């Protein structure tokens, strides 16, 4: 009895393949989440600084049926995690070009998922019907894991621009290989996109420094454009390239939303039946016009990649047997997210009154205490909790509302915690627990450390 069954036309299959290729640039595993009217594919990179998701709504499919296992399928979810390469090799690019290989052209693709919890019969079954009656069947195993979704609070994102994906591609093509950061800056009616690397080299090494590329364009290139002037916002150029290379396969408009450095940036675009959303961590600062993005001062700033997996050995779980199963990353996600604000720099004039810049900083001395369970009553919204039954009323990470309100109330930690984990209620987790911090904030390093 399949939990999920859907059918793809060759055209949709090609689009799914493109989406998987894009997800593969973020993580080697793809999380699949099915509900009664849509399928969501997500990937979170290993440093938890970038999140990609593709939502396929019903019209993307020739047929889509989610049966669920219980009485009320419309409120249920099915989650799994599959090695991306396995999916890619099944949905090979061939589907996109029926003209090239006429004899092996794919006519349709049926996917069913059987979830025989614990019986070993859980399989992700893909049947591809090709011309001349050839039927290929693939049975993939999957891991039953709740996906983690990065959260993005649109309300606090005051900066917005949108631009044609083709134009964006033209810009990105000017960037040479090897750079790490992309700085987006607006002043005097012109937008500068700068791709650069901060590594300081000397002697012969200087010649190995990657190209420093700046593209200055008129804001008329953009459709919508409301961005604070003289604000440097920096994202990973690699992530940006991955997004643009997918977006440019579709003639669409890419929309960016962001607030301030050290807060996430959201990039979205859509195609027929396919919604793409990316959430990227940002660094940077609101500096005067004189400072170039690669100025010395900037180079010296502590880098900002979250070093999540940094020290598994240094972990000190409060209770060893309570260690969460495979979703432990959810913990680290939040843990990683918070310290970022420490990295952020003061934006000289607090750019928007709604954001309390001071709150982005931790008190130097006792920042680690924030993680102490003892204080949890005061800062409940920031606690990391495992939501076991989905019934808990405690403000846990999976309550998006809780987070948002938390944000307005106390801006302390979650300036950053907005890339945040959501666990799923039906995940087989132990009872609600609180985990002690596993890494000292002082040990956390930045986004582009290596």
């Amino acid at each position, binding site marked *: 009895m399949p939990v999920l069954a859907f059918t793809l036309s060759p055209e949709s299959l090609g689009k799914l393949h493109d989406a998987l290729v894009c997800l593969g640039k973020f993580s080697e595993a793809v999380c699949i989440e099915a509900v009664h009217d849509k399928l969501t594919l997500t990937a979170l990179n290993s440093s938890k600084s970038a999140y990609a998701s593709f939502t396929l709504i019903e019209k993307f499919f020739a047929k889509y049926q989610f049966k669920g296992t219980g009485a009320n399928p419309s409120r249920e979810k099915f989650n799994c995690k599959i090695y991306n390469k396995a999916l890619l090799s099944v949905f090979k690019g061939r589907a996109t070009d029926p003209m090239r290989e006429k004899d092996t052209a794919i006519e349709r693709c049926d996917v069913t998922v059987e979830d025989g919890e614990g019986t070993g019969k859980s399989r992700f079954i893909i049947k591809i019907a090709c011309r001349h009656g050839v039927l290929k069947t693939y049975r993939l195993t999957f891991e039953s894991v709740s996906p983690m979704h990065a959260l993005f609070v649109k309300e606090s994102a005051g900066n917005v621009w*949108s*631009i*044609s994906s*083709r*134009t964006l591609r*033209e*810009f990105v*093509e*000017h960037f*040479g*290989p090897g750079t790490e950061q992309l700085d987006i800056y607006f002043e005097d009616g012109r937008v500068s996109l700068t791709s650069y690397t901060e590594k300081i080299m000397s002697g*012969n090494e*200087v*010649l*190995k*420094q*990657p*190209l*420093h*590329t*700046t*593209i*200055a*364009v*008129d804001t*008329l*290139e*953009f*459709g*919508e454009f409301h961005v604070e002037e003289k604000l440097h916002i920096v994202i990973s150029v690699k992530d940006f390239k991955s997004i643009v290379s997918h977006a440019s396969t579709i003639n669409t*408009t890419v929309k960016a939303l962001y607030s301030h450095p050290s807060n996430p940036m959201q990039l979205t675009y859509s195609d027929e039946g396919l919604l793409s959303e990316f959430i990227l961590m940002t660094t940077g600062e609101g500096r005067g016009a004189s400072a*170039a993005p*690669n*100025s*010395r001062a900037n180079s010296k700033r502590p880098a900002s990649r979250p070093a999540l997996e940094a020290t598994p050995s240094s972990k000190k779980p409060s209770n060893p047997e309570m260690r969460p199963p495979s979703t432990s990353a959810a913990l680290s996600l939040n843990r990683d997210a918070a310290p970022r604000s420490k990295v952020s720099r003061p934006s000289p004039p607090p750019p928007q009154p709604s954001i309390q810049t001071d709150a982005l900083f931790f008190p130097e001395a006792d920042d680690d205490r924030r993680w102490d369970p003892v204080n949890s009553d005061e800062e409940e919204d920031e606690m990391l909790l495992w939501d076991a039954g989905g019934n808990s009323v405690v403000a846990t990470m999976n309550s998006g509302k809780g987070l948002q309100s938390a944000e307005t109330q106390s801006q302390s930690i979650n300036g950053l915690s907005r890339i945040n984990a959501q666990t799923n209620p039906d995940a087989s987790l132990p009872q609600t627990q609180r985990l002690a911090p596993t890494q000292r904030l002082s040990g956390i390093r930045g986004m582009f450390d290596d």
Partner: protein
Amino acid sequence: MRFKTSIRNIQTFSTSLSTLGKVAWVRLDDDSVRFTIIPETGTQVWASLSIESIFEDYTIQSAAPNNTINLELPLPPLHRALKSAINATSASIRLTKKDGVPVLSLTIITNTVSSGNSAGGFLNPANADPFGDNVFREESLDANMGREREAIVTQDIPIRVLTADSVEGIHEPRVREPDAHIVLPSLIQLKAISDRFTKLAMATSYGGARGGASSTASVPKLELAANMHGSLKLSISTDSLNISSVWSGLNNPELDPRQLDGENPENHPSAKLKAAGQDAWSTVRIDGRDWGKVLSVGRLGGRVIACFADEHALILYVYLSNFNDGVDDSVLTYYISSFSV
């Protein structure tokens, strides 16, 4: 120290150079531009170009005689940066410092292809509704559509400025007087056949182990030979294979008496080889893959004269006459040493 110029023609030029090495020594002065590539192994290139062949509105100024500036320039970033200039309306280059680091800064003004069709125009969802409020706002739409949008791209290439002392000791290789000199046939044809020979030899001599042989020693050597009677012979041999290809009817150019230092042309090695008849060859053995890279200079479309010093070296002179109507002041010289048997 000042250097600023607009650039032209440089694209194909950089393509040809960047295959041969990662770093070039560039010497700029009032009269010419010199690019020198001296890789650890493989072919040396000494290119001397007239200013006009690649630059326009050239300004150079330094404390050294003849306003000479010596730079160490990484070729892959240069090549990548110049890619941005392909559809540019203007491109200029200048020597400057950014954050204390010297760079060659390339400024390119290019039109965005999607001009008038980007999200600001009809694609804007707000204007998509023909019955919406925006339907009569033609003025603003026209303004957007008619405007050529420019993007200004700045590419900063890291460089090192070299002192005169540090380049003083670098000289062109000394090679003895060649035994044969001959105008090469079409380089694209020569390259296709050379590459084919190399592949065949690699496939047959190592049981099809491809690419694995990374050291030049294990790759079979191409044998290139010329006589002074218009023939060029390309051959390769392995245990299981022996192939060769011969061109005939090529031109052996006359020696310029001015370059013989008053010596009797009759005593020149090439005269002796010519006297020895059609079966007298001057031969060099070269690495097939390196040779393939050298031949990529063919895209510049110059005339190529090959000079053979038997069992010693091969020198190619590439005259870029098409850059500068008939005046041979842009010459690329390739020094390729011969491998011993």
